[in-house]
């Protein structure tokens, strides 16, 4: 039981924070949003040089071989600074999947580019129907078909809310190759060249203003069978794990954002004068601030617990779902409460980061499992919760409520009399 970071992790945290404070202040974030790439290519080069892509990758591919805790520490700082980039898509969702399930040739071909920042990857999973009817993150939601045709497969269908598709070199497309059995049996992962004929990326206009998410149309796109990552029909398992890691990293991002929001809000409550006093004197303002602390602290620990369990290869379905649900709700609550404390000052577009945090938080909350979806998973996990353990001593019959008629104060007769 140890809630502290190791020295190297503290160093990573400090280094990342200092770097992003300098390189990614609010002005840079706002500029990034306006770019068609949706991220700063210069900054991407810089963090590649710092080794941020390869943190959890083995040394043979140029990585550091560090843990998910280390990665979560980094993501906390990225969330704090509102640093947007294709890191999650490239490194965690796709790169990690190739590492876990790819063949030696595929890993040798793809991973060096992931680690040195030269390759951008995007995960195309969710579809218009699945994103609407609650099956976005389950195998049931995969309906886009990939049909065998000689040495190739032909993918036909529409993927929606695909992050970073418009800047990706390759797209990891999750497609259905078999019908009729269990939903996860029949899901295959195809690493598709983004330049393939038949692929169209249409950027979606979202509230974060960022050029980030696309509708990706696969119009009879040919993919060689050798570009299947993992087993035919067996793509769901490695994908699920990458998504769990991704969900935990999003939690870490939300924790980092929440911490910054907390600091900004408490500082404002202490310094903003109205009615001749700091507004933080009012208990309702204090209630907002205390809830912020409760939200951020609780989401921090559930996030790191989930990261640790994934690191230890333990069954983490429950813990990841708890973390994502909690962190998502906590982030929404934190943004809401900070808006209440800041009031008008927090709503202006020209000044202040609150509108940005709120909008980005909205993306993180829904991606890879919104609280509703996660609570469904948690309820499912609870179904197999064991009964309370029963002790083995001789029964004494003292806990049958119906036999407990005598009020306790009657046994104090002597004290009763003394008091009169």
């Amino acid at each position, binding site marked *: 039981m140890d809630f502290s970071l190791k020295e190297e992790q503290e160093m990573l945290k400090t280094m990342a924070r200092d770097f992003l404070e300098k390189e990614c202040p609010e002005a840079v974030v706002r500029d990034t949003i306006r770019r068609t790439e949706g991220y700063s290519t210069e900054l991407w080069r810089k963090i590649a040089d710092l080794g941020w892509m390869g943190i959890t990758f083995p040394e043979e591919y140029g990585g550091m071989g560090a843990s998910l805790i280390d990665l979560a520490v980094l993501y906390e700082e990225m969330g704090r600074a509102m640093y947007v980039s294709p890191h999650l898509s490239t490194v965690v969702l796709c790169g990690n999947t190739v590492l876990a399930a790819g063949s030696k040739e595929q890993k040798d071909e793809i991973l060096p580019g992931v680690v040195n920042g030269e390759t951008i990857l995007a995960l195309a999973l969710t579809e218009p129907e699945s994103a609407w009817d609650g099956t976005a993150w389950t195998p049931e939601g995969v309906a886009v078909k990939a049909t065998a045709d000689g040495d190739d497969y032909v993918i036909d269908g529409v993927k929606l809310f695909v992050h970073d598709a418009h800047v990706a070199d390759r797209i990891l497309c999750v497609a259905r190759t078999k019908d009729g059995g269990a939903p996860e049996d029949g899901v295959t992962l195809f690493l598709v060249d983004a330049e393939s004929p038949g692929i169209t990326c249409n950027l979606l206009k979202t509230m974060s203003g960022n050029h980030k998410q696309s509708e990706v149309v696969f119009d009879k796109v040919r993919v060689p069978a050798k570009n299947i990552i993992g087993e035919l029909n067996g793509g769901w398992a490695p994908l699920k794990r990458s998504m769990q890691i991704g969900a935990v990293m999003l939690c870490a991002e939300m924790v980092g954002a929440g911490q910054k929001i907390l600091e900004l809000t408490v500082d404002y409550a*202490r310094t903003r004068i109205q009615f001749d006093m700091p507004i933080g004197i009012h208990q309702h303002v204090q209630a907002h601030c205390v809830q912020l602390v409760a939200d951020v602290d609780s989401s921090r620990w559930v996030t790191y617990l989930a990261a640790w369990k994934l690191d230890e290869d333990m069954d983490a379905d429950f813990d990841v779902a708890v973390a994502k649900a909690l962190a998502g709700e906590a982030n929404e609550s934190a943004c809401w409460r900070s808006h209440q404390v800041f009031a008008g000052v927090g709503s202006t577009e020209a000044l202040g980061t609150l509108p940005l945090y709120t909008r980005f938080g909205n993306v993180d909350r829904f991606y890879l499992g919104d609280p509703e979806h996660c609570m469904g998973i948690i309820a499912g996990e609870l*179904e197999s919760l064991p009964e309370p353990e029963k002790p083995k001593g*001789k029964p004494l019959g003292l806990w049958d409520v119906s036999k407990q008629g005598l009020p306790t104060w009657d046994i104090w007769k002597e004290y009763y009399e003394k008091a009169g």
Partner: protein
Amino acid sequence: MEFGFTEAHEKLRKEVHDFFMNELPSDHYPQSGVRSSEEHEKFQAEFVKKAARKGYTSAGWPKKYGGLGFTSIEQGIVSEQMSYWGMVWPGALGFSLVAPVILTAGTDEQKERFVSPIARGESICFECFTEPNAGSDEANVQMRAVEDGDHYILNGQKTFISGGQKPDWLYTLVRTSETIPPHRGLSIFMVPGDAEGVSYRPLPTMGGSRQNEIFYDNVRVPRENLIGEKDRGFYLAMTTFEFERAAVSPDARTGLRRLVEFCRKEKKNGRPLIEDPHVRKMLARMAMHQQVMWLLGWYAAWRRTAREKMGPLSYDLTMFMRKQWAPTSANLLMNTLGMYGQLEPDSRHAKYNGAVGRSWEASRMIHAAGTPEILQVVIANRGLGLPRVPRKFNAMINEALSEG
């Protein structure tokens, strides 16, 4: 950052687990809000002595005074098991509040006299702080202790004092000096429970929680029973609260297991409750909360080991968050029973022996040891540095208010 335990920890956990498993009767059920009988009290008193002999009740104290010298983490393992089996010690206040304070601030003679019997489970202590005009405003204690030679004479009244058995000691907060601000004139005395002039009136409260009014009528207490320094009692009381909050154990999720079992067995419209979407959402929310409470409990335990390096904790969320969530599981049960929930145990048609109504009532009682509102103020002021009006202005403000 890691959330596992060493082999030695697991061995200790098994040992404590097996103790409870073998010693508790198979029909044992945790007592939230259920009024207990004389036989039950006797069972509790005997059981606590058994546990005390193993040292579990005083695990964190030095061995010299009957403790096991356990680390914070080891103590956490013991208290987690207590939470797991639903055990609350009678006289728990003695173990978790009174003895640790005396170990910190008492003389060696006091440690011998008070702490060792508490360790053996032979001494029941009541924490006598609250008065009719001194609840959240602890510093407003009015009970006077006037010096008289080798003794002090105590006069006043305490109320809402928790405790079911006859106490051996009353750990009492009194006013030894009139001061402004008021908290600078308080002291703590150990008063014998059967001292001449002490009388009790039981104060039945909602949900069957056992509380009392205690009257001190010219009670003579020897000087040797003053704990710490005269007029420094408020700071000891604050230390007491710190120990109180530290005594909260990591949530072992037994409550959730019980709820899930209830939802698996109980049916509505032919289907088990656990298939109902509303119930599922409520259970998921509770599971999320319990994960947090488990982690916060262990965080507090771990943080105590790191206190030297990291300094004292500036705020503690555990009790605050637990109280925020207290009504929720009670509400789930109550909402399930609907109109049946109001039936008393001896009523016709009562389900689950009427225990649900009682535990729901008891869940309204989240004010003891710091209301959530006070806890929030403490976190806001001390933890976050948010401002408050200094006490010395309050009387003036009150006057201005009544002037209209």
